[in-house]
């Protein structure tokens, strides 16, 4: 059973554009929603995370929007840069359990 659904599978954006990746979860026990960025040959690195008591969190060019009633959350990358080209995973967790989405391969064209 896939508990975290992520879309799109791949995304191509022009430099300076906005990249948007969406996720939906099922288990209301999840209380932490991180996003990971993974470059080829590297492990996932925490990019930004949110807890369900807030609806939005912004760190630099990266923003998470969270809709608790819809059980959905999304990552927005403003002013996307070629260096942002990577695979992005959303995740949902509770203590001792981290569940990943299927991943989005982002390509930012120069």
């Amino acid at each position, binding site marked *: 059973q896939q508990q975290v659904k992520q879309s799109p599978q791949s995304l191509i954006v022009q430099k300076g554009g906005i990249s948007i990746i969406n996720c939906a979860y099922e288990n209301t026990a999840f209380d*932490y929603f*991180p996003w*990971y960025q993974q470059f080829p*040959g*590297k*492990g*996932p*690195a*925490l990019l930004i*995370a949110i*807890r369900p008591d807030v609806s939005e969190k912004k760190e630099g060019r990266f923003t998470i929007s969270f809709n608790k009633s819809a059980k959905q959350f999304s990552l927005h990358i403003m002013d996307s840069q070629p260096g942002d080209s990577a695979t992005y*995973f959303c*995740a949902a*967790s509770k*203590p*001792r359990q*981290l569940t*990943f*989405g*299927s*991943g989005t391969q982002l390509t930012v064209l120069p």
Partner: protein
Amino acid sequence: SAVISQKPSRDICQRGTSLTIQCQVDSQVTMMFWYRQQPGQSLTLIATANQGSEATYESGFVIDKFPISRPNLTFSTLTVSNMSPEDSSIYLCSVEEYNSFYGYTFGSGTRLTVV
């Protein structure tokens, strides 16, 4: 956050052999996790390793194939036994740590190719 060192970073192994992957953390952590990431896929949890107790395996993963050791609060190993080409994946170690809240940190992974 914790710094995780994983060894080896990559290896090419013959089918039927075994490989042990090491995960060293620079701080004491209670929960350590082992994941598998098949090419182009997401991360799948293999098992959870608590110090002083047997590892807990997820559905589809068994101890005979993926034995895990957790001798102390900073170290764990995962062995991939009797390997086949289907075991070719990236294997990742992760820890759960607490600061003001909890979070998960990953090692850089071991890229395994079985030929």
